[in-house]
């Protein structure tokens, strides 16, 4: 049953598995939807959707699927009709189910129009019945009443219909359309490991071999030996292009940054920012404001060559930015080109890769020109999951 809903959810990018679907079927058997369409909506959501970022996709798909049913009433699943006919809180009398079922076929705009007309006509209070706006009853308007579709007028939100809840789409802000998943990036970063027990850790790990040896040397009197736990010694230096043409890839880059900074297994992580090209000054913050400026030489002098370096940038700029020795930056005319600075990094750090969020530009001469120059100097990879894995493997071996 509803199998098409399952496939609709999957086609809308929700990663629903058969396991979860079976759970939903089980839940419906147990009657956990509480005999109401709204209950059904919440049940589906809590069983099938596992992140608030996907709520909006789910709302969209839910609306799409169940809205269609008013036009194709023949295909109404029997279950749904059953719930609609047997709601828990149905009063025993005065309900004209036939009349109510007719409402099923009304569209939202028809209801809206009828509502305005009815408001014009109606001059008094109504409770029960099928026509007027009031409480109880099966009319499409009013509150505490029962109709498959309709407009609620006033009253508390306890009885909100699923259409209305889903229709609010209030999780829209959470949606990321995340084709990239920081977890996957994080898993990739795990490749950057180099274990060593020569770290400055407390000795907390029970060392069986040494304990046996020491105990034997001690004439059989127990002597427990502890060892330092093995720790990852990888240090990472991340240099990120920020601003300008990189704005376009900011989400991708920030996902990479998040993944790197959340990966707590690095011994050290240093992040610096530049705009288009590295010169004698580099920034500690992504907003590239003067207060976060430090000297590039400081990095080269202080961060040892065991750091593994990832440069993230699109490598596309005006050629003079890369090649002109007197390109003006921060009042420093040191006659050193941007390219030269890049080369210094390459010389100092044997483990260095370039991640590029963009492909080689096929238009505009100079954009491709700087791309090609940099590509020749560095191992360049696309900033995608597959390429990141390759790039990180590359970082672990000497060139």
């Amino acid at each position, binding site marked *: 049953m509803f199998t098409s809903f399952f496939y609709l959810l999957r086609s809308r990018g929700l990663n629903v598995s058969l396991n979860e679907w079976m759970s939903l079927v089980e839940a419906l058997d*147990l009657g*956990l939807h509480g005999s109401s369409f709204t*209950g059904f909506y919440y049940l589906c959501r*809590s*069983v099938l959707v*596992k992140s608030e970022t996907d709520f909006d996709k789910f709302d969209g798909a839910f609306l799409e699927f169940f809205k269609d049913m008013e036009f194709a009433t023949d295909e109404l699943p029997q279950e749904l009709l059953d719930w609609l006919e047997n709601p828990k809180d149905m009063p025993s009398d005065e309900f004209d189910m036939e009349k109510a079922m007719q409402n099923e076929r009304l569209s939202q705009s028809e209801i809206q129009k009828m509502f305005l007309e009815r408001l014009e006509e109606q001059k008094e209070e109504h409770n029960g019945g099928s026509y007027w706006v009031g409480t109880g009853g099966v009319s499409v308007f009013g509150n505490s009443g029962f109709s498959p579709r309709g407009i609620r007028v006033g009253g508390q939100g306890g009885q909100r219909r699923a259409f209305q809840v889903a229709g609010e789409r209030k999780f829209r802000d959470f949606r990321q359309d995340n084709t990239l998943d920081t*977890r996957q990036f994080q898993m990739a970063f795990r490749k950057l490991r180099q274990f060593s027990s020569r770290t400055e850790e407390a000795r907390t790990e029970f060392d069986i071999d040494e304990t046996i040896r020491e105990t034997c040397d001690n004439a059989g009197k127990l002597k427990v030996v502890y060892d330092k736990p093995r720790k990852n010694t990888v240090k990472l230096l991340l240099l990120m292009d920020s601003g300008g043409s990189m704005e376009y890839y900011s989400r991708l880059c920030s996902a990479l940054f998040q993944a790197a900074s959340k990966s707590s297994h690095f011994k050290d992580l240093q992040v610096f920012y530049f705009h288009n090209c590295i010169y004698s000054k580099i920034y500690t913050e992504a907003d590239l404001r003067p207060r976060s400026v430090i000297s590039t030489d400081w990095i080269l002098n202080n961060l040892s060559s065991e750091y593994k370096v990832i440069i993230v940038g699109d490598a596309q700029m005006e050629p003079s930015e890369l090649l002109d020795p007197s390109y003006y930056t921060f009042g420093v005319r040191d006659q050193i080109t941007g390219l030269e600075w890049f080369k210094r990094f390459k010389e100092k750090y044997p483990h260095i890769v370039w991640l590029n969020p963009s492909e080689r530009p096929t238009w505009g001469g100079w954009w491709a020109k700087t791309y090609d120059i940099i590509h020749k100097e560095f191992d360049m990879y696309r900033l995608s999951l597959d390429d990141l894995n390759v790039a990180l493997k590359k970082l672990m071996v000497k060139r």
Partner: protein
Amino acid sequence: MNTTFQGSKDYVASDELMRSVNIAIALQKPLLIKGEPGTGKTMLAEAISAALGKKLIIWNIKSTTKAQDGLYVYDVVQRLYDSQFGNEGVDDIKKYVKLGKLGEAFSADEQVILLIDEIDKADLEFPNDLLWELDKMEFYIPETKETVKAKQRPIVIITSNAEKELPDAFLRRCIFHYIEFPDEQQMKEIINVHYDAIEEHLLEQVLDTFYWIRDLYNIQKKPSTSEVIDWIQALVLGGIDPDKIKEKIPFAGVLLKKNEDIDTMRRYLK
């Protein structure tokens, strides 16, 4: 299951939350709770425990926690030391196997509530290491050749602050609920649970200001429920005139914990 969760007198639960709790209980699956800090994720387990009258076992996760810690710990070193002095019962391995929180929950005679708090604090692989145990509600202890199997499947509540993404395989086994930040009406109910007699006018001024601050564009750490509750206490104790709250925002440090945020707020205030 004849018991369902209906909220408790100290805990205001939304309809949706109660639905999710009851779905998780009925389907016997772990309930994963996510939400902004301060929306009462941890308190939920306490409330369920109180409402259903079941014992609560809390497993607090830290960055160093391993899945194994929750199952059992085999104290080799103690056993070695004991054997040195020929203490009695050294040959009984059971004596040195101590059950962790998960093991405790499984071996309880009555159904308990197990809260796995802040699961995202642990290592990336942590949730995956618990898949079998949470699915089958059992685990094997090789040292004693015993299987610990849940006598009564515990009700498992898991909270996450979304510091790390959880693995798909783990998520598939959970019922998921996202606690939205309470709207003004719910917030009033929550505050009334904490304070008996709050002057209506004061409460309105407080909430107006509170939601105004939360909606400011570049507040980095938005104040949450626990902060507004502390703030009300500060205002009441300080005897602040309710009409001054909006324009002066006294004791702003209780609401906003970052200097930048206080500066931002002051800027908007002018």
